[in-house]
C-alpha cells in the first residue's frame, strides 16, 4: 500500500494514498467535526458541511471528507475561514432542532454536544431564527423511538439499513426544508418492513433514533423532548 506524508495542525502523519483528509485526521487522533461521513461509503455524502479545513495553497476552505490527501499537504483544521463555515453550518443545524438535552435520552452520547464543545458554540444559538418542523414522533417500534424533529439528515441510518444490511426500510423523502428520513409511504416503523435490528439506532449521532429501554419513555409521552 502506497502512503503519503502530510501535516495536519502541525502534526506530521502518514496516510494511505487516495485517503480523504477527514479519515487521515481522525485515525491520527485529530478531531474534525462531522456528521454524515461514513468510512465505508463508496462516495462521501458531503452533506453536513461541518468538516471544513484549510489547505495551504487553496484559497477557500474545503470539506475534509471529499479532499484526498497529497504528499506534502499542509492542513489546518482550526483556520478562521474553516471555523467560520463550520460554525455557521452547525448553528443552522441546531437552529432547526428542538434542543432540550435535559430530557433527551441521547444526552451525553450525542455528537451535537461534542461538536458544540469543539466549536465553542452554545446549542441554544441566538444568531438565527428558530425553525422547527413539528413532525409527529414514531413510537411504534417495540425497540426504539424515531423523532424526526431531532434528525440532522446525515443519512447514516439510511446507509446502514440499505447498503450494509440490504434491508432498505429507511430512505429520504421530499426535498428542501421538508426532506426527511422515513419509510415507504411514511408509514409507522412497525408497519414497515423494519426487522428491529437496531443498527440504525446505533448509527444515529443524535437523539432522533433512540432505544426505548435505555430511557424508559413510554409511548405517547413527551413530545419533542
Amino acid at each position, binding site marked *: 500500500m502506497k502512503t503519503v506524508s502530510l501535516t495536519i495542525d502541525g502534526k506530521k502523519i502518514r496516510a494511505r494514498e487516495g485517503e480523504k483528509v477527514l479519515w487521515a485526521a481522525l485515525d491520527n487522533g485529530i478531531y474534525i467535526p462531522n456528521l454524515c461521513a461514513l468510512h465505508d461509503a463508496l462516495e462521501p455524502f458531503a452533506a453536513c458541511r461541518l468538516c471544513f479545513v484549510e489547505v495551504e495553497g487553496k484559497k477557500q476552505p474545503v470539506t475534509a471528507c471529499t479532499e484526498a490527501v497529497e504528499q506534502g499537504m499542509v492542513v489546518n483544521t482550526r483556520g478562521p475561514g474553516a471555523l467560520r463555515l463550520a460554525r455557521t453550518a452547525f448553528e443552522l443545524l441546531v437552529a432547526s432542532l428542538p434542543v432540550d438535552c435535559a430530557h433527551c435520552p441521547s444526552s451525553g452520547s450525542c455528537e451535537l454536544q461534542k461538536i458544540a464543545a469543539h466549536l465553542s458554540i452554545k446549542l441554544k444559538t441566538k444568531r438565527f431564527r428558530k425553525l422547527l418542523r413539528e413532525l409527529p414522533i414514531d413510537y411504534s417500534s417495540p425497540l426504539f423511538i424515531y423523532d424526526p424533529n431531532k434528525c440532522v439528515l446525515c443519512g447514516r441510518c439510511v446507509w446502514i439499513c*440499505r447498503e450494509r444490511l440490504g*434491508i*432498505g*426500510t*429507511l*430512505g*429520504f*423523502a*421530499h*426535498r428542501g426544508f421538508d426532506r426527511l428520513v*422515513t*419509510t*415507504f*409511504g*411514511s408509514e409507522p416503523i412497525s408497519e414497515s418492513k423494519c426487522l428491529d435490528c437496531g443498527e440504525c439506532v446505533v448509527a444515529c449521532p443524535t437523539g432522533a433514533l433512540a432505544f426505548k429501554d435505555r430511557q424508559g419513555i413510554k409511548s405517547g409521552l413527551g413530545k419533542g423532548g
Partner: protein
Amino acid sequence: MTKEQAEVKQQTKRILNRFGRKRGNLVPILQKVQGKLGYLPREAMLEIAEFLGIPAIDVYSVVTFYNQFRLNPPGKHSIRVCLGTACHMKGGYITLDAWKRRLCIDRGQTTPDREFDLDIVACVGCCVMAPVSVVDDKPQGKVEPTKVDGILLSFKLKKEKQGKESQ
C-alpha cells in the same frame, strides 16, 4: 385487496411490460403510470419497486422529490399558476390568491367535489404573457383576478350545459 387496488395493479403491470427492468427507467415508468392513473397509488409504487428489484422506499423517495408526481387523485380540471419571475412581478401571487379564494383550497389541494386541483408551476416560459395560469395544460395569458372569475364561470356554464343535455 380491494377491486380498485387490483385494477391499479393490473394497469401498472400492463405499462411495466413495455419497459426493461433498469433502474434508469424509473422516472419514465412513473410518468407513464401517472399519465394513465392520474396519480401514483401505493399499489402502483409497490408494483414498480418489485419490477425494478429495488426497495419500495426508493420509489417513494423519487416520487416525493419531483414536483410532477402526485400521491393523491387529481381534480377534473387542473389549474397551475405560473410563478416565474415575470409572472410574479406582474402579480402572479395575486392571481394565485384569487384562485385560492374562489376554489377555497390551498395550493397542492383538490376541491372536495374533485372538480379542480390547484398548484403552482415554476415557469412555463410564456413570460411575455404574464401573469400566466395553465388551465388543463393550456397556458392562458394575462390571468388576473377578474379573468380567474371568467374562467371559472365558463367551466360552470359548460357543466350546466352538459347537465341539461344529459337530462
